[in-house]
């Protein structure tokens, strides 16, 4: 039997290229996921649920004069983002703790693989897996497109930002997985972090309202005479008013000072990054049809502060929607915060994976 290749000198000193190491780990992870039957069942259920929601949206919105396409498209995106936040931690946070529990992590660590390569490979694989959930909704996005009212420049940005957000959640999951000793703990902490971003930002925003309570000078709205009379049958134009001259104080919230708290919210990042459709010619028509557009608009109102809440601030008529003073996009800040968080956790995780290992948490074994 030939267990050893006899001429030892002929064996070249083995070197593992950085990318080829990442590729091998990626392949290893993906092959395991692809062979898992539960994975396909989950994708199937996922498709049916999203299709049902989008189909119902098509029925109900289609009755009005607005085409349902934009609504459907944004619903798909919001859905994938929402459930992606729930699925991505489960897909990523077991990637290293699972190997620890199986005893396969030490086998990987005993090869020429570096902790960095391991993390890159694991992250890319879990990201690819969570993108699978986006890919199966492509037919539904295609369906929405057929109505012809989807604002096309926004579509690739929405999909792209959604993919980036899933990638960030996966990075959080993989990093925590490297730090944690037990899968359950890793998944839970990842969920908490995602909740911190998704709900925590909203709660912080809501609670901070009290801190930015301000007193502003307002005046009355004066409506045209004919609106006051009982026999007015014309269209009520909400913008058709002037402001009175007598000022009186009123409580308001300087929300423009705390809008940054919302920045790291994944929904805000995605919605805010999307280019806005130009205002429709008909002023009456509601512009932001879908949930993502609504979020984006809400953020812009918040950035405008009291101007958006009070029709006659300091005796000056407010412009609606508040576009006059552009405070700049919010998403680069949010994405920056998320990237810093993910990078910090990944760096800590990388240190934890270094071998020969120094400190070990109590109750754990290397192998």
């Amino acid at each position: 039997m030939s267990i050893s290749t006899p001429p030892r000198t002929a064996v070249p000193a083995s070197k593992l290229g950085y990318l080829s190491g990442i590729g091998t780990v990626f392949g290893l992870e993906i092959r395991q996921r692809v062979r898992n039957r539960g994975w396909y069942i989950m994708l199937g259920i996922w498709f049916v649920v999203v299709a049902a929601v989008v189909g119902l949206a098509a029925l109900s919105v289609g009755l009005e004069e607005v085409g349902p396409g934009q609504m459907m498209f944004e619903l798909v995106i919001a859905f994938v983002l929402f459930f992606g936040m729930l699925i991505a931690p489960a897909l990523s946070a077991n990637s290293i703790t699972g190997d620890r529990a199986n005893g396969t992590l030490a086998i990987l660590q005993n090869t020429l693989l570096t902790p960095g390569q391991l993390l890159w490979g694991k992250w890319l694989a879990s990201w690819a897996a969570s993108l699978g959930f986006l890919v199966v909704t492509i037919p539904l996005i295609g369906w929405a497109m057929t109505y012809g009212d989807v604002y096309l420049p926004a579509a690739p940005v929405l999909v792209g930002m959604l993919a980036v957000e899933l990638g960030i959640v996966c990075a959080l999951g993989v990093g925590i997985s490297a730090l944690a000793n037990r899968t359950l703990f890793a998944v839970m902490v990842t969920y908490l972090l995602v909740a911190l971003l998704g709900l925590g930002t909203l709660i912080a925003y809501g609670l901070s309202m009290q801190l930015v309570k301000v007193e502003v000078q307002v005046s009355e709205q004066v409506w045209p005479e004919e609106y006051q009379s009982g026999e007015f049958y014309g269209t009520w134009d909400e913008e058709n008013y002037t402001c009175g001259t007598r000022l009186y104080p009123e409580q308001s919230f300087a929300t423009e000072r705390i809008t940054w708290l919302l920045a790291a919210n994944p929904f805000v990042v995605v919605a805010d990054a999307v280019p806005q459709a130009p205002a429709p010619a008909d002023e009456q028509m509601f512009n932001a049809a879908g949930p993502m557009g609504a979020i984006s608009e809400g953020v812009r109102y918040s950035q405008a502060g009291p101007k958006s809440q009070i029709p006659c601030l300091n005796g000056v008529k407010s412009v609606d929607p508040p576009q006059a003073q552009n405070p700049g996009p919010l998403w680069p800040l949010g994405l920056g915060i998320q990237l810093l968080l993910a990078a910090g956790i990944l760096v800590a995780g990388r240190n934890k994976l270094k071998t020969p290992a120094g400190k070990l948490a109590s109750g754990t074994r290397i192998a």
Partner: protein
Amino acid sequence: MKTTGMSREIEQHRFFDQGITATGLARSFGSVKAVENIDFHAEPGRVTALIGPNGSGKTTLLLMLASLLRPDAGTIRVNGLDPLAEPRAVRSMLGWMPDTLGFWEALTSREILTTVAALYGIDKARAKVRANELLDVVGLGELADTPARVLSRGQAQRLSMARALINDPAVLLLDEPASGLDPGARVQLRTMVRGLADSGKTVVISSHVLVELDEMADAAVFLSKGKTVRSQSLAEAGAQDRRYTIASLDLAALRAGLESNNLQASYLGNLENRGGSAKLKLPGENRAAQLLGALVGAGIPITAFAPSSGLLEETYLSLEDEMP
């Protein structure tokens, strides 16, 4: 060599340059001192057995030698390289078979081997050849393309062995390789380990099955409570006092025969007949042969004359005697 200035020193320690040398190793996990003071040397071309009771620090020592665990104190050299300073250089020539069997269950045996080969930087074509070769060597050729999850414990053990050999390591660390193997596979493992050592590799093997180690080990290091309590070669073990069991059809005659040779023994009679057996300590094999000749010559009906235990077991038991 890394530093030319130290060449004289290296010259002096040429003996320790090859194989594994560890001195003064210590490692604790929290308040538990898994390894307190271990000196260890394994030479190339020999099988060094690592023997000790559960919790004596065998696995911790192997993890440190495998460059996975950092010792709190002490130094390790694997073929002259320090695993702390150059872990990757050490890993490229090291094969480690852990005591816990971990596999990617969805992958086939062949895929597991080629994947690990890729992580050693072995190119695809060579990895394929090597995987085939090793699967045949460990007798998994027929199961090469079934998922690892269907492998039995013994089969998984053999796959683990093949995995440890994938990079053709010069140093092989085997943690309990025989556990879970059927008798046939144990014999195979023994021949394989012997073959590997004879081809010049340094083989370190830990096991509880001492009789088995007798037949493949050249040297043994005994651990107890995280300390090296004895290092010996099997030749030395052969020369030490050993317990023998002598059975006879006539216990009274056996007792008379032994007493005439001035030997102390403990006797155990059979209930149903006059026969019985005696247990005694004999200094070395020559004395044993001499005594057997004398007893047979005196006409005592001897039915069995054999060492009570294996060579290593003998040392192991004598160490336990010495323990307080």
